[in-house]
């Protein structure tokens, strides 16, 4: 069960990054699991999606201009493309001359994309039998999600899932690893996880100590 979830998390993370043009064609990726943790490590993630220049075709020139003045059709196309009418150009096609606009689509940062899209991938992992745990039943998972870690380079990506916001701290086996582990997912250090120096208690639940 854990092995397939581990593989699925990796597959989904890679597919997301590929779809969003955030990794090279042959990324270096690993996945890990323990009874309480699923993890993936993907190297060479780009900081930002490339900017994309797009050319869109608009109305025919003979509709767009009447007596040299732009018609509502030309204005609407310019507005839709986010450019001035004067920036529109004319292209020739077999069907005649048409207006065209060149637009620049700015790429999002990897952190933005991950924060927006990764929670959906986590939610979509297949479990033979999963469960609700939070009041109002907002999401399901195999067991309650207690913490999340998401680090891009040295920076935390504060994505949220199941009411938890990702940080840097993860937790090992309750007895054998008493210290909190700081997940140092660093590209340069080449170390996946190394024990933190600070001794800190496990996550506290404000409701629990009743």
């Amino acid at each position, binding site marked *: 069960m854990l092995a397939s979830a581990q593989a699925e998390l990796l597959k989904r993370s890679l597919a997301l990054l590929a779809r969003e043009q955030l990794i090279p064609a042959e990324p270096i990726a690993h996945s890990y699991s323990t009874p309480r943790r699923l993890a993936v490590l993907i190297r060479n993630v780009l900081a930002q999606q490339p900017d994309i220049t797009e050319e869109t075709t608009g109305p025919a020139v003979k509709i767009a201009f009447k007596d040299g003045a732009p018609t509502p059709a030309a204005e609407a196309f310019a507005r839709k493309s986010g450019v001035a009418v004067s920036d529109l150009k004319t292209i020739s096609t077999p069907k005649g001359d048409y207006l065209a606009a060149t637009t620049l689509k700015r790429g999002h940062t990897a952190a933005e994309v991950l924060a927006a899209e990764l929670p959906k991938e986590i939610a979509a992992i297949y479990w033979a*039998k999963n*469960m609700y745990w939070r*009041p*109002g*039943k907002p999401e399901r998972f195999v067991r309650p999600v207690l913490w999340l870690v998401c680090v891009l380079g040295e920076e935390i990506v504060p994505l949220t899932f199941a009411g938890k916001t990702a940080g840097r701290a993860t937790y090992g086996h309750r007895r054998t690893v008493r210290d909190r582990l700081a997940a140092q997912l660093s590209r340069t250090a080449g170390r996946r996880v190394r024990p933190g120096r600070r001794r800190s208690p496990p996550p506290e639940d404000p409701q*629990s*100590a009743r």
Partner: protein
Amino acid sequence: MPSVVEKKKSLTFQELLFTLQRFWAEHGCVLQQPYDLEVGAGTMSPDTFLRVLGPKPISIAYAQPSRRPADGRYGENPNRLFRHTQLQVILKPPPERVQELYLESLVAIGIDLSQHDIKFEEDNWEWPVGGAWGVGWQVMLDGQEITQFTYFQQCGGMDLDPISGEITYGLERIAQFLQDLDSIYDIVWSRDPVTGHELTYGEVRLHEEQQFSAYSFDYADVPSLWKHLELYEAECLALLARAKETLIEENTDVLAVLRFPVLGAYELALKCSHTFNLLDARGAISVTERVGVMARIRNLIVGVAKIYAEQGRLTTAA
């Protein structure tokens, strides 16, 4: 192996119960007394089965003697009982730290977690007759199951929101472990604080095991049991039918709604369940009959759960 001195210090059966009850009371649980009707598990007590329904939060703990007629061994098997004792804890909704709390409770009863192997093994519980299921773990202590840990998802065929966390300790198993014994009957139940005289589990309970095993397997009168089953079932069905007329939105008689004996109907359904177990132990239910009888009991228990939820809805709205 614990030394003799250490062994003496381990909790008696009754101290084990006190300690766990105190632990959970200190964590906000209401301590309830055992339910005074035959049940096969703590889950079947209305303090679990009915309280997990509906929106009202509850933290409750109680010991529940649990009768399983087919499990009796005339007191001759050191590890099997007709009637064992569960400590049942219901946390609705469960706190996020519920697993940690459970581990702390093990420390409270003297289990050194650094010296023993504790595993939470995936184990998804279900009780089809009650339309109930949940996911969770069986907790293994050095390879022996000591607790069932469940996040209830459905009960009486209804989705739960909020869900409940259920912790069911097998007290005999834990006492046997703490006292390092091969037989349940050797468990020290109590120790006289003045004389130090020890009373064992066998001295307290062996005669029950002998006699109820004999009753369940050899003496229980099968035609009478079938009659009991039919009588309990008929009365329960009659109450369910009357509930359909009483527990409705249009009923302006608030007292009639409040006083409608859903709990009485539930006891009749539990009686059917126990009678079924006795018939089963007597070998009186054929394979073909079995499914049908279980469906009849399910109909009662799920029916009661539905009217309980309805009564709760009507009386909290009023």
